[in-house]
């Protein structure tokens, strides 16, 4: 089968690759481009571990075909830290022990980032709702919720 070109912005850098038609964005990112931060959990749209941000919206890269992302701006967890400095969400996750095995963490961070991008000072219920498509089998969720709330407070203090 002939390869087809795909081109998009990944974490602010332009990426171009040749892929098989029908390749999921998850597989293109991990196997072709080398960004392994999105995780392949269920491949069914159930666990949220593969979550990425496409043009400002949270999406599941396991159910998104890469060729439908031509021209899009894609953010993954790899793009969160800048110059070796952790993103406030990453720092809050570490401080709150919000990560244990770590498999769900990239998806959780993406879901939390979209929430804080649109709702800088979320309520606890809004955090729970924002994370409702992401499954964690380790933490019991509470440390993750607290980490997102802490990051939101940190952001608002820095902005003040």
């Amino acid at each position, binding site marked *: 089968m002939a390869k087809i070109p795909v081109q998009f912005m990944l974490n602010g850098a332009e990426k171009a690759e040749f892929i*098989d*038609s029908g390749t999921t964005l998850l597989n293109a990112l991990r196997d072709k481009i080398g960004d392994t931060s999105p995780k392949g959990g269920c491949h069914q*749209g159930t666990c949220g571990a593969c979550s990425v941000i496409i043009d400002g*919206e*949270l*999406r*599941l890269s396991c159910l998104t075909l890469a060729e439908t992302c031509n021209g899009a701006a894609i953010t993954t967890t790899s793009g969160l830290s800048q110059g070796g400095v952790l993103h406030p969400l990453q720092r809050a996750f570490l401080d709150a022990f919000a990560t244990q095995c770590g498999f769900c963490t990239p998806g959780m961070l993406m*879901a939390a980032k979209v929430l804080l991008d649109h709702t800088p000072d979320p309520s606890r219920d809004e955090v729970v*709702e924002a994370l409702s498509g992401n499954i964690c089998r380790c933490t019991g969720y509470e440390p993750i919720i607290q980490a997102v709330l802490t990051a939101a407070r940190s952001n608002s203090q820095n902005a003040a």
Partner: protein
Amino acid sequence: MALALQTFSTVKDANAALKAAGTRYLGGGTLVVRAANEGDVSVSGLIRSTEPALSAITVSGREVRIGASVTMAAMARHPDLSSLARAARAVGGPAIRNMATIGGNLFAPAPYGDFTVALLALGATVGTDDGEVPIETFLAKREDNHAIVTSVGFSLPLEGGFRFLKISRVKPKGVSVLSIAAVLEQAPDGTVSSAHIALGCLADRPMRAKAAEKALLGRKLTSDGIAPALAVASDGTSPITDAVASAWYRNEVLPVHLGRLLLA
């Protein structure tokens, strides 16, 4: 196995391409890519259309037309459709709602397809290039449908007339034990003058609770008034059994939740 995706600018061209064996229409990907990921070898090619009308929402008075590619998230945030937002938000988590489409939801097997339950209660019509059909007719033969669904249309219910309930074991979001949508109209004396009730997970696809609808007519929405409707709520149901709930359980709890919805 990789799938070949073909993109067409018009529904007409996409419909023509869909005649090839093994092809499926790609909406948001939450059904068909999921099936392919699961190993459904009957899917060998994907077709999609980028025709702008598929992504449009038009509201004229109480008449609503929603393009089949409109996502649940777009539906939930539309200012003129706030009365239906609860049903749109019942579908999946935020990422799924950014992808799942109105058109795709029509094909979602139980326990999915919660928004279609709402559309059934609303008495929607389903549009294709071949014309429009009532949603009940469409759902009954949806496996035989080979034309791309282009839109759904319905009339907005009167204020407060639409009710929706989704029951799941996982909070705040999980797969449905069942979902119920109701469009009710009441006479000035409080008695029910019109009732459309739709059920999800009580069959392999959304179904109307016609016996309950009939039993509600002329009754007030009180515990005594709705009792006859609850007694026949399970008439004609054939619930699914899955990891979330057995068919027996779904039938047992249906009157409880229908009662809560009607008395809310």
